[in-house]
């Protein structure tokens, strides 16, 4: 389906030729390359592995899973098989293969592949991803994201609901409880959307620092979060808790279009919110105990 190919092309850095595509999609004038960089290179990395992998990082098992889909189709996976542009282009191709199939059996086969790819590899993260994009992007990419979300919702209707939730969503591990593991692992797991159910980008931490009146330090997200935590653990836990609740509420809105997938993300965000509340309570208790001890 050409629509997806065209959308795919725009999640690459803008080039002169992309203007024709944007125009055909009615998205208006292309943004400058720096806006692309700001959105996709610094904030919302357009790779499935970041949102579906237990580490919340590029590559690894989550990327291999997407590459495995290419291999299962007898295709050579590209180096970055889980990049959104490549995935959307593959989806476009799957739609065409189904359309062009000579007989009913082949058509059914391609339909099954299309449906599996849509639910397992695209819808398993894109509702949350696009929701975040809507929050942080400027006009052009917000319009692009909205169009992609509409197109995906239409596809979900066309191919029908999935039989069961993708295994990698069902079996994704939860957050690390800092009372059992290390604080560092806890912070790291918070930044892995597959575990926490929430997507935290750099812009969020700048906002947190402003709201908590804390200083930010330059570095990777985990480092930034850690330095905030060191300055004001209670405040950060509280801020994160609110963020998780707000996020769960946002995901609730996706239920209508994306059903069980949206619910799975929502459930994770809620459980993150609960854990954060517990931790905050524990911290407050500990600090009271500390004060009493000091008084004695």
């Amino acid at each position, binding site marked *: 389906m*050409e629509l997806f190919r065209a959308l795919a092309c725009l999640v690459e850095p803008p080039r002169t030729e992309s203007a024709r*595509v944007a125009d*055909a999609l009615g998205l208006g004038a292309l943004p400058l390359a720096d806006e692309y960089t700001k959105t996709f290179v610094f904030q919302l990395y357009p790779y499935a592995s970041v949102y579906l992998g237990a580490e919340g990082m590029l590559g690894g098992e989550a990327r291999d899973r997407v590459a495995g889909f290419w291999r299962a189709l007898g295709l*050579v996976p590209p180096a970055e098989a889980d990049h959104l542009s490549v995935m959307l282009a593959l989806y476009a191709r799957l739609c065409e293969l189904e359309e062009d199939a000579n007989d009913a059996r082949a058509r059914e086969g391609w339909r099954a592949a299309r449906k599996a790819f849509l639910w397992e590899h695209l819808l398993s993260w894109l509702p949350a991803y696009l929701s975040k994009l809507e929050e942080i992007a400027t006009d052009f990419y917000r319009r692009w994201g909205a169009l992609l979300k509409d197109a995906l919702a239409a596809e979900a209707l066309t191919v029908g609901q999935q039989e069961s939730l993708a295994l990698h969503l069902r079996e994704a591990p939860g957050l690390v409880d800092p009372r059992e593991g290390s604080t560092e692992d806890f912070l790291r797991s918070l930044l892995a959307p597959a575990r926490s159910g929430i997507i935290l980008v750099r812009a969020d931490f700048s906002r947190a620092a402003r709201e908590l009146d804390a200083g930010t330090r330059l570095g990777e997200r985990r480092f930034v979060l850690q330095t905030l935590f060191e300055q004001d653990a209670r405040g950060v836990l509280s801020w994160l808790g609110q963020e998780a609740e707000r996020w769960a509420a946002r995901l609730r809105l996706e239920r209508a279009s994306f059903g069980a997938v949206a619910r799975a993300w929502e459930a994770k965000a809620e459980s993150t919110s609960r854990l954060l509340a517990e931790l905050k309570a524990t911290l407050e208790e500990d600090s009271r105990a500390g004060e009493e001890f000091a008084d004695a």
Partner: protein
Amino acid sequence: MSLKKLNERVSAARKETEARGETFYPGPSRIHLAAFPPKERWDDWVELDSRAWPRREERRYMLVPTTCFNCESACGLLAYVDRESLQVQKFEGNPEHPGSRGRNCAKGPATLNQITDPDRILFPLKRAGRRGEGKWVQTTWDEALDHIAARIRKAITEDRHNEVMYHVGRPGEDGFTERVLAAWGVDGHNSHTNVCSSSARAGYQYWMGLDRPSPDHANARVIFLISSHLETGHYFNPHAQRIIEAKAEGAKIIVFDTRLSNTATHADFWVAPQPGSEAAIVLSIANYLIQHDLYNREFVRRWWNWEEFLAVEQPETETTFENFELSLKKLYADYTFEFAAAESGVEATVIEEIAKVVATAGTRFSSHNWRSAAAGNSGGWQVARTLFFLNTLLGAVATEGGVYPNAWNKFVPKPIHVPGHPHTWNELTWAREYPLAMNELSFLLPHFLKDGRGKLDTYFTRVYNPVWTNPDGFSWVEMLTDESLIGCYVALTPTWNETSYFADYILPMGHGSERHDIHSYETHDAQWLGFRQPVLREARERMGEKIGSTRDVNPGEVWEVNEFWLELTWRIDPDGSLGIRSFAESKERPGERLTVDEYYGYIFENSVPGLPERAAEENLTPLEFMRRYGAFEIKKKIGAVYEELVPEEELEDVRVDRFGRAYSRAAKPASPNVVPIPTIDPDAEGRRFVGVQVDAEIRRGFPTPSGRLEFYSKTLADWGWHEYAVPTYIRSHVHPANMADDQTVLISTFRLPVQIHTRSANAKWLDEIAHTNPLWMHNSHAARLGVRTGDLVRVETETGYFVVRAWVTEGIKPGVVACSHHMGRWKLSEAGQRQMMATVKLDHEGTQWGLRRERGAQPYESNDADTQRIWWTDVGVHQNLTFPVHPDPISGQHCWHQAVRVRRAEAGDRYGDISVDTAKSREVYLKWLAMTRPADEFSPDGTRRPYWLLRPLKPSREVYRLPEQPEPVGAD
């Protein structure tokens, strides 16, 4: 708008854009590694000037394709020609090139350094003082051309044809100069191939008639490399990208390399065998396949010449395939894993594991050996032969993922003029002692001249630097400085080199982006043609100028060799009375000299199937198309040509002999592809060899005397080498049994991925990355000698020694030392490449030669500010000077590995010191000469050489016959 409508709108926009021949979707960079400028914008491509940052300054470019000349792979380049200054700003990959597919190694973009090199030679120079004295005067092209043409004309008219010689390193073209020499009627072609790939060529040619493998790496299941092919060698960039594709698909990679090279690091199995033992290991793998019946029986039955083997070698045995299988099992039974382990030092269990992996490959087994072990060892040609043996056992020949004979994946278009074969045989290149040499005995030239076998009137070199590259360089200096041996030496070179210092004329020729050539290489299973062109000539023609000669656009008075040879040919025979001029004459304008436009225009119009039609689709002439895109793919997926049935019209009055060879009276159909293929003898009644009968059908077969894959080479048996008639293992000259206890093997041929033989001293980016060649030595070895990294060591060869610094590493087989190629460049005075050549002093007394470094590289002022930023002084050590010649008695290949003694340097030794006695070089030459089996004694039919074997410039058949009265040959 509904999604459906939007979808339709995008489809319509795409259709409309693409119908205009424009790009709708820019290539996603994540799929193709890099995104390329769309073709329709090549005439006016806009980029921001990086140096203007942070200002956004636009620069407009014309993108003009050409072909890289910095190795043989002939990858596509795109020159970014600034539309204002009309200078090249940078080189990137050409996405339209089917071999390299837009990708390049570091050497491609470094072409920019070569064309802007402040030390390049810009004008024709003529020697002023004595030869080698370093005094030059600028001369004119006219003076040089007239002088050289007159000499050659005189030599030809006085019947001294064999005194004219052209000696080439990297040809970078398909037969242009061979045809020039044929037009002059001289057998004067000399190549560098015997210091390069002759050995591997022999191994392949004795199997399949064609001397080069074309592995289909991308589709292989198992890839077997005896080399560091992923990082260096030919055609490493086109091959490496395909090997990595296969690896991503799960292919297993086996690498034999004494060093832990970058290739070895990518292997599933890295084996570091004792140098020279490679064939023993490969044969043990073959034996495993044979003894366990894991070979492709049907393929072997149909395509091996086993019937000939049994009939000749075991006439008492009934000729059945089952009997052959029994013989085969017996022949190789001794090549056990344990035997291989004892020879190689590699554990038997490891070899067995590899054998099991090979056995899983089926017909998707790609293998490659080109130099490496084949070029290092005496008998090294058996390395390639035994490696291809595995392919023939598995049936992985011209299959998907297998190995093709090169000629099937190559296209050499028929040119406008085709001169006949010269009627003369040059014994200075094709000596009688080496009737089976794959190529000219080029590196023996000084010894042959000292033997008194002849002399040279006019000697050309091009892309060739024998004093530096060849073994025994001081013997070359002795030859070049003796005017009674070489009358006039003309160096055709864009840049200074160690040999050019001894020239009479230095004539500057253009670099890769300053000249014309066509190429076609077997990078994968397809046929393509690449076009090299002077990019500024094309750019200016696009701007509306008419350029008559490439000299008008090149810097200074730099020319190109195509136009030079045409002009020289014209001046040798200005009135046409010698019958030579016609080969340089225009067909369109008789009486005028052929132009390069007409030469290539004719080829693209008449000899490249599909090109005129493709060009017409874009309203271009075929020449315009090639000037615009730089490459054309003629055919994809050639497949197994040997299986093709010979069509009816080629079968006339057919005779089939007892081994199935089919001969026909029908004439050979004309083909526009004139890629060299062996000519197989006709039958006794003059019928042409047309194919082989396999199970009652006549198929194309292979261009070998038997028409099949030659497990058994009757040629070798007939010409005195019966013991090697089947693939076997020959112990190397550096086998432990052939060395003294205190000697060790020196590997001297490995390359650095960013250097170009002796042609990158003028590439500052490459020089900065790699500019020295320490001696690799294992920790245990270093500890024994008491040597640490950076210490000076003396490496003693048979003829002298060199002093170098040690580099202690675990990345090499213990007990073996290695020193890379490319380095140790030198100059005698300021004339030279200052970025990468040390200034040295030569000491010479009698046969004793010494070289001592006076000064390394240092910063200097030039029109390039970067030359002030040269931070390195060390440019390595010129080890090749200390190597004597080691010509393999069969292939003629120089066997590079050296048996050396390594010890701590002596007091007074300085880094880079060289000491050589050329009298000792002479002794070694004579010792190896004595191992030959000369044609005079061993020729089975009174000829000098088997006629079917390839020869770059083939003389007419009658001169193959040995003279009735043997002429005196040899030194004694």
